[in-house]
C-alpha cells in the first residue's frame, strides 16, 4: 500500500483548532487550586529507541510526574491545603484492601521464589 499516493492531504486546520481552544478555555487568570494542573517546563524528548524501551520510557514519565508532584504540593502547602491523609483518617481507597493484600502476597511469593532459586 506504500506505493499508492494518499487520497488527499489530512485535515489539520490550525486556525479552527485555535479558535475552538479559545471558545472552551478556562479563564487564564484561574488559580492553581481550581484545576491542580501543571505543565513540565521542558518537553519530554525521547529518541525512538528510548520510546520503545519500557524502562527508559517509564523513567521519563516518572520524572515528569515527580516534578509536578513536588511543585504541586509546594503550592498547596502555601495555600494551606492538606495533602497527605492523617494516619487516623480512614476512608475508602481506590483499590480495596483485599486487592492490596493479593498484591502484597504476590510480591512476597516472588521474593521467596527468588531466594529459593539462589
Amino acid at each position: 500500500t506504500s506505493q499508492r499516493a494518499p487520497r488527499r492531504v489530512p485535515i489539520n486546520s490550525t486556525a479552527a483548532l485555535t479558535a475552538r481552544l479559545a471558545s472552551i478555555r478556562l479563564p487564564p487568570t484561574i488559580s492553581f487550586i481550581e484545576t491542580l494542573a501543571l505543565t513540565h517546563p521542558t518537553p519530554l524528548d525521547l529518541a525512538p529507541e528510548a520510546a520503545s524501551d519500557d524502562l527508559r520510557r517509564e523513567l521519563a514519565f516518572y520524572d515528569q510526574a515527580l516534578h509536578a508532584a513536588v511543585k504541586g504540593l509546594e503550592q498547596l502547602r502555601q495555600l494551606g491545603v492538606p495533602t497527605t491523609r492523617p494516619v487516623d483518617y480512614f476512608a475508602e481507597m481506590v483499590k480495596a484492601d483485599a486487592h492490596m493484600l493479593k498484591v502484597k502476597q504476590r510480591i512476597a511469593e516472588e521474593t521467596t521464589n527468588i531466594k529459593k532459586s539462589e
Partner: protein
Amino acid sequence: QVDRASGDLGKPQNKQRVLLLSSRGITYRYRHLLNDLHALLPHSKKESKFEQKTELYALNEVAELANCNNAIFLECRRHTDLYLWMAKTPNGPSVKFFVQNVHTMDELRLTGNCLKGSRPIVSFDKNFDSAPHLSLLKEMFTQIFATPRTSRKIKPFVDHVLNFSVVDNKIWFRNYQVVEKAPPIAPGQEPISLVEIGPRFVLDIVRIFDGSFCGATLYENPTFVTPAQVSFPRQTPQPGTDKVDHP
C-alpha cells in the same frame, strides 16, 4: 482572589461533570477500564450502556439529562479494538482516540494506592504546547481529568498524580501515588517519591471534531492506521493486472 489567611479560596471558577459510558458489547477488560476511570474521577457519572452504533450525537442528550458538560464514551469494535471518545457536550469539540496498551488497575498489580475521591495533580508534558491540536487536547484533558474543588464526593487530600505525556504523537496515561518521605531528608534528595497505581493506556488520536460527537473535522491524524487495515492490508494491484480503460 485566594485569601491565604482565612483559607477562603474565592468563587469556584471550574465546574465540570463527566459522563462515563460505553457501547454495548464491550469486553470485560474495557469495562474494568471504565470502572477505573470512574473510581479516579469523583466528578463523573456512570450511565448504562449506549445502544446505538451510529448517531452518537444522541449522547449529548444523555449528558444533559445527567447534568454533565463533558463525556467519555468507550466504543468497542470487532470485540478487540477500543475507541475512546472525549467530548465537551453539548457544543463540542470532541475527539476520537484509538486506545492501545490497556492495563487496568486489577491486572497491573502495582503497589500504589490512593483515596477514592481525592483530587489529583494533573501533570502535562510541555509537548502539549507544541501544536494546536495538542493544545486543544490539553485543555480538554484538564477539564475532564482535573477534579473541581467543589465536587461533592471529593476527599480533602491530594495524594496522586495523573500524568499525560506525548511520545510519538500518542498520549500516554499514568497514575501515581504521592508518597511524602518522613524527615529527615538528605540534602539534594526529593522529599517525595511516587508509586504507580494504574491504570495504563495509550491514546492514538484518530480525529478531532468541531461539534460534540458530530461536526466538521478540525484535525485528522496522518499516521493513524485502523486496526482492520493492519490485519487485512488491501492488496496492491500486481503490475499487468490493472484494468485499462481503452478510449
